[in-house]
């Protein structure tokens, strides 16, 4: 059964189309990673699914409940950890989690019991009675995650869970997220980090400019890139010549990635040898050349024509993410 279903969701803010007919389905017990740059529409989709925003058109359900027809029903089934750690500095960690429990209609005793349980699980129990203002960024994020777990939601929505978390805590956070899913929670997380999606998600949806442009497991997406690539670095003056020569040996379209030329290598090492020869024939000496397995970054580049983290200043972005919050 699908715990989350979105069908053809459209959402616009004024002239800006934040979501242009997005459909996804998440199976029970799965981590679904929504991968895309800032402004792709990830947050807007999360806000629609968590009943914070009404879609213009399209339908969505969570745990079989329609998000528009019965938002309160949906809220009983979900937990949300938004882009900012929405925890109160002046309360202790325990008070923060207990408050959410009370707002979830738990009795005082149940709220206290669940807070204890959740804080233990998230490994914050030792700091539970300290004010949150003494917490590190990673601890705040974990507390936010703890708060979203109160009420034992069936589906958790994590919007860029590792933003603002230092690299060490990030690994901890990933472990925690994996444990959650092992315990039976289904999870939708958004990320702009390819390694995060790669590591956590059972299924990845690549989203860009409000549309889902591809979907599959990490391996499927990489395979669609045509397997391996030969990565070639040449001096700028040689670029055009090199590109011309490499096209003849490429098993697909040549892609430019920053300073590098990526040659789809259907024949693996043989394509590499061919590439070296082709360059030699036109008198270009590569600065660096090598065979490598594609990363999700390559996938993204192939699908969208730009890198995942390049468009952080895009104007549509601020509108769709902030717009989701403010418009």
């Amino acid at each position: 059964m699908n715990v989350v279903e979105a069908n053809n969701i459209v959402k616009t803010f004024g002239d800006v189309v934040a979501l242009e007919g997005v459909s996804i389905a998440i199976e029970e017990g799965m981590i679904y990673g929504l991968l895309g740059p800032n402004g792709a529409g990830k947050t807007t989709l999360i806000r629609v699914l968590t009943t914070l925003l009404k879609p213009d058109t399209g339908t969505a359900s969570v745990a079989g409940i329609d998000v528009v027809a019965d938002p309160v029903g949906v809220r009983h089934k979900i937990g949300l950890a938004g882009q900012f750690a929405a925890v109160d500095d002046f309360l202790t960690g325990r008070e923060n989690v207990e408050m959410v429990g009370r707002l979830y209609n738990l009795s005082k005793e149940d709220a206290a019991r669940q807070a204890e349980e959740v804080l233990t699980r998230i490994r914050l129990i030792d700091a539970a009675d300290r004010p949150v203002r003494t917490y590190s960024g990673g601890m705040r994020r974990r507390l936010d995650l703890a708060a979203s777990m109160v009420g034992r939601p069936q589906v958790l929505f994590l919007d860029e869970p590792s933003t603002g978390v230092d690299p060490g805590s990030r690994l901890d956070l990933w472990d925690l997220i994996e444990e959650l899913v092992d315990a039976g929670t289904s999870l939708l997380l958004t990320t702009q980090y390819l390694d995060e999606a790669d590591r956590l998600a059972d299924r990845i949806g690549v989203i860009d400019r409000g549309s889902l442009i591809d979907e599959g497991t990490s391996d499927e997406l990489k395979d669609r890139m045509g397997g391996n690539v030969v990565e070639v670095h040449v001096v700028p003056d040689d670029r055009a010549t090199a590109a011309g020569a490499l096209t003849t040996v490429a098993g697909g379209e040549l892609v430019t990635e920053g300073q590098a030329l990526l040659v789809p290598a259907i024949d693996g090492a043989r394509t590499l040898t061919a590439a070296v020869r082709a360059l030699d024939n036109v008198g270009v000496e590569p600065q660096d050349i090598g065979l490598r397995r594609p990363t999700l970054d390559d996938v993204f580049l192939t699908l969208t024509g730009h890198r995942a983290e390049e468009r952080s200043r895009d104007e549509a972005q601020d509108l769709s993410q902030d717009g989701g919050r403010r418009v």
Partner: protein
Amino acid sequence: MTTVTGHRQRVKFSNALSHTAVITKRNTLRVVRLPQLLLFSTIQPVMFLLLFNYVFGGAIAIGGAQGGAAGSDNYINWLIPGILVQTAVFGATATALGLTEDLGAGVIDRFRSLPMARSAVLAGRTIADLVRNTFVNGLMLIVGFLMGWRFEQGIPKMLLGVALALLFGYAFSWVMATIGLVAKTPEAAQSAGFLPIFPLVFASSVFVPTQGMPGWLQVFAENQPVSIIANAVRSLMVPEQTLAALGLHQSTLIWQSFAWIAIIIAVFGPLAVRQYRRSVG
């Protein structure tokens, strides 16, 4: 799609009340746990009290100077009722600030993703601000008492006066909630909030009698709510025999005050709720 249709869950009223209590407690704890907030929100009104009494007090002649305890020799008895209203109105700006801060920090999103009553966010905010205003006004009374302020019509009437000032402050919290939710950022909310407050508080009978103002301003000053409330509070505190000399008609002022409080809540309550729905998508 596997959608369950035809059944729409609602938040129970008893739950909504308990949500409001939880949010009120949270907002109140913020002030208690961050003492600098309380400190600065009390220093300002006390400063107003001291400045107006000692700097302007000597120069301000009260119309009913012959009216004994409320006379110019005893400006503090004119000032305290006004200052209570002024403090409550200024204090209402905290509603705008608190809401914009919560919006910015994503706290409102967390609340809205929970199966809780939406009204609890606004109700819990305005009630917490009422609690804080009550504390600050209590402090003003103590400082005022030390400065020579006396109430002359007994404790119940004095308390009714304080309650009127606080209720008006509460009603004004809904104005500030609306402004805050339109302004969206704390900085904008701060400036926008004081736009209506300054003319209402200064072109009023809060600090000085309105008789000294130009005619056109008098018309405004005498009929606007802040003056009505300040005069109502005053009419419950100064000696009864001075009421006529000061031109204060107690029972009229009291019902007018309740009417203003009711009107402001009736208009700005729904406006704030509507704006809240819009600002959070």
